[in-house]
């Protein structure tokens, strides 16, 4: 049976948004992390994890947001990470965000970041 990602021929698709934009830093990081996880899952498993996203949720997510869900799902299924530790890490990030202010973060971002070269 055709699933939500299997888009070929869907009849209600509208105009194509041809706006060009560079990948965001977090998207590049995500791609790198996924490729670094090749020992834990292969590309077919990754696509299956995207396919398994609940259809209504799938429609509301951006392309790379679907990747985050697939990555998390697979790492948990494979026993690499647990949902609890990911939730816990999110809490740590959020607690620190609340204590800091933007200008410092902008500097850190550049230090930790990479230049957005042409794609």
């Amino acid at each position, binding site marked *: 049976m055709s699933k939500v990602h299997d888009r070929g021929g869907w009849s209600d698709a509208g105009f194509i948004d041809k706006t060009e934009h560079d990948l965001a830093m977090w998207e590049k990081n*995500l*791609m790198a992390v996924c490729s*670094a996880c090749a020992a834990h899952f292969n590309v077919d498993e990754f696509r299956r994890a995207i396919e398994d996203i609940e259809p209504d949720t799938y429609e509301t997510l951006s392309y790379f947001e679907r990747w*985050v869900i697939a990555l998390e799902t697979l790492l948990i299924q494979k026993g690499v990470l647990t949902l609890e530790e990911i939730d816990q890490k999110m809490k740590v990030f959020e607690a*620190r*965000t609340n204590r800091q202010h933007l200008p410092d973060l902008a500097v*850190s971002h550049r230090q930790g970041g990479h230049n957005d070269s042409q794609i």
Partner: protein
Amino acid sequence: MHNHDHDADAHSLIAEDPELSFYAKRAAAIEALLIEKGMVTADNIRRRIEIMDSRTPAVGAQVVAKAWVDPDFRTRLLANAKAAVAELDIEVESPNLVAVENTVGIHNVIVCTLCSCYPTVLLGASPGWYKSLEYRARVVVDARGVLREFGLELDEEVQVRVYDSTAEMRYIVIPQRPDGTEHMSEEELAALITRDSMIGVARARTPAGEMES
């Protein structure tokens, strides 16, 4: 356990940017955990990003330009593209790469209806529209209409072939060499070969810099 070395901190700080969406933070949390557990290093992530950034459509353009000027290479490229590009020290990660050639009577265009399979090594990161649900849905049922949206009007007698990529099978379009380029060097020709012309939603540029009509 928290790892307070420099790299882990740098990544944590990215994650604390309040502008980041929930999913971007979630991705950063996963990355930070993998680094803490020693499953991946921040250095390795950085190197992977550098490699991604180094991949641009100029790599594909070099391949197409060579096919335009070197008939033997063209033959080898059409027979086995993965082996042919390896001659230029380009290593294609997918098991198969197929080059499809546009001619007077045939126009090719590539898509991945399932996700976003794309010849990244030759063209760099795929454009957003290539991954869009609209492009994936429509190009396989109304290729001419989609191409028209991209500003490419094809004569009725031109046959349009749409190639649906998979993880195992990637495609690249060899656009037609424009008229009036007989005197040009391989390097000059490469400058005419755009990303979109190698996806098949455009023609190569003409020497005057205009899109051939």
